[in-house]
């Protein structure tokens, strides 16, 4: 018996992939969350700011509507402010330096057989695994 969570993961994953496919084939854009947001913040995306804002409106708005209709799913997000701030800074700086995150390098890059996308994904998975091991099993802070 396959756990329900795996099936939901696959279904949700297919939805994410279809969203990326529509964004690519209709608008000619890579669906990378860090690039779409980061370009708005540092001004490099000024030329298509409206498209970026529309994408973010959907990405924030639809989960909010789902939460309002059927109850907010648990995020289980830590309530340690120092951890949240350090993690957020690392994610913000790291994804902009590497020019991509899980959606851009992971979903869009791997499926294009992009060397950079595959390399980036391997590095953030390994780094994440190491930090998780040290943070949870050695230091107990995660």
């Amino acid at each position, binding site marked *: 018996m396959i756990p329900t969570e795996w099936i939901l993961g696959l279904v949700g*994953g297919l939805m994410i992939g279809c969203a990326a496919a529509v964004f690519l084939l209709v608008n000619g854009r890579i669906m990378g969350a860090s690039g779409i947001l*980061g370009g708005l913040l540092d001004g490099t995306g000024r030329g298509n700011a409206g498209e970026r804002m529309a994408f973010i409106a959907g990405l924030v708005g639809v989960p909010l509507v789902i939460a309002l209709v059927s109850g907010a799913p648990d995020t289980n997000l830590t309530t340690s402010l120092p951890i949240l701030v350090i993690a957020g800074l690392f994610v*913000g700086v790291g994804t902009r330096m590497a020019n991509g995150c899980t959606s851009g390098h992971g979903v869009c890059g791997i499926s294009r057989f992009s060397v950079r996308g595959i390399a980036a994904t391997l590095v953030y998975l390994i780094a994440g695994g190491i930090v998780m091991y040290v943070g949870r099993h050695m230091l107990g802070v995660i």
Partner: protein
Amino acid sequence: MRLLVALFAGGLFGAGLTVSGMTDTDKVQGWLDLFGAWDPTLAFVLGGAILPMLGAWAIARRRQTAMLGAPIPAPADPVIDAPLVTGSALFGAGWALAGLCPGPALAVLGYGGWPALAFFAAMTAGMIAQPFLPVPRGTRAA
């Protein structure tokens, strides 16, 4: 039209993240916790997302432009450089600490309460600061 497509793609991305459980930081951190209670859900999400994109890239390779006229984004030079590796390692560390990457950070922004806002604020600060920070040098052809 581009704006409507972007809104739709962002919304479908957000719905997929919610359905797949990637807005639950326990599942993401569980995936990275190889030496604890390992949770393989993320592999189903990533695999599910890559499937439609394999088809999308196969179509995109035969076209010059997307349906609304924009050029299909050219692939980056297949170079694994220091910013890609360092940035991805930083990103992976932050991802493990909080269990959020940029897509889910936006998806939980509307209902995740103050921890979601704190992470988002730190992430955007990192994204704004990154162009002003030193970038590691060094390039190695893949």
